[in-house]
């Protein structure tokens, strides 16, 4: 999983969107470089599938590269991986206080209990990191906020600083994932997650994704 971050993006939806695609192209090139391949930035295109999930396409190649893009003014952030069988999710958030309603709604009871044990000064950042990681998971499985974030359980991540390989739950099924997160000053936090598609039925099968979206399973707490 390689990361590309562009700072000082102009404000406005179009500028952020373009910077996000630029970051994704750079992340694809860096990922290729890490596997000892040189490609030109111009040979990488970013296209979205029917569910809105972006994929990297290298000119002349059939297999898409896994990418994920996020922006929060003034940043555009993207991750890419050329390793087959991986789905990626990335998110960048401004660190800000969250309303009690949002906190109650997106955390599971177990996550809320674990967060309450942290010192108050750590809670503010950790809450936003939790949100960001859940959004990364939902983006990785190609669903986004159309699925309730409480259906994702990241309790093993809370307080586990420095660990990159960890398990998360999606609808009570555990998946081994790789996580990455980084603070940018005290104002922004970026997170990314890599989930092996073999370990999750959400991976790339649209029918299963639709079933996850419109199925009857309620969020669990």
């Amino acid at each position, binding site marked *: 999983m390689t990361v590309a971050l562009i700072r000082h993006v102009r404000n406005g939806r179009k500028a952020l969107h373009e910077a996000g695609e630029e970051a994704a192209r750079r992340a694809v090139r860096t990922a290729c470089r890490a596997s000892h391949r040189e490609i030109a930035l111009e040979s990488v295109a970013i296209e979205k599938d029917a569910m809105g999930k972006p994929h990297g396409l290298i000119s002349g190649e059939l297999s898409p590269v896994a990418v994920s893009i996020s922006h929060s003014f003034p940043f555009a952030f993207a991750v890419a991986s050329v390793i087959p069988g991986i789905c990626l999710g990335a998110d960048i958030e401004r660190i800000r206080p*969250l309303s009690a*309603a949002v906190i109650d709604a997106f955390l599971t009871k177990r996550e809320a209990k674990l967060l309450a044990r942290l010192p108050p000064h750590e809670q503010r950042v950790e809450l936003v990191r939790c949100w960001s990681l859940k959004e990364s998971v939902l983006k990785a499985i190609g669903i986004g*906020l159309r*699925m309730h974030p409480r259906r994702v359980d990241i309790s093993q991540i809370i307080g586990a600083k420095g660990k990159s390989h960890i398990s998360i739950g999606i609808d009570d099924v555990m998946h081994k994932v790789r996580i990455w997160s980084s603070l940018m000053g005290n104002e922004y936090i970026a997170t990314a997650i890599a989930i092996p598609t073999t370990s999750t039925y959400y991976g790339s099968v649209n029918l299963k994704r639709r079933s996850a*979206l419109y199925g009857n399973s309620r*969020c669990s707490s």
Partner: protein
Amino acid sequence: MEALILREEAHCMETRDAVVEIISQTLHVAPAELADDRKLVDLAEDSIALFELLIRFEQALGGHIKYEDIAHIETVGDVIAYANTLPADLLKSAFNRTQNPPL
């Protein structure tokens, strides 16, 4: 027949008012800016604000709808259209609740 049409029109206006009120309060956007074709994702500052809007709708409707029922909705007009499919008394109580927002 005319009375029925007038009642339906009044119901639609109440629905629009309730929906616009919730969006305006949650996303801090003036009601005048909430045209039907405005996308919620463009109106919200970020994904957290968008999520807050969705849970406000879920709560305003008293748990009669599931989060996933509304989470795919894209525009202000889509929310109004969806709300118009709900029973009038349910919307009336949701509208009353927005006068004293639960959140």
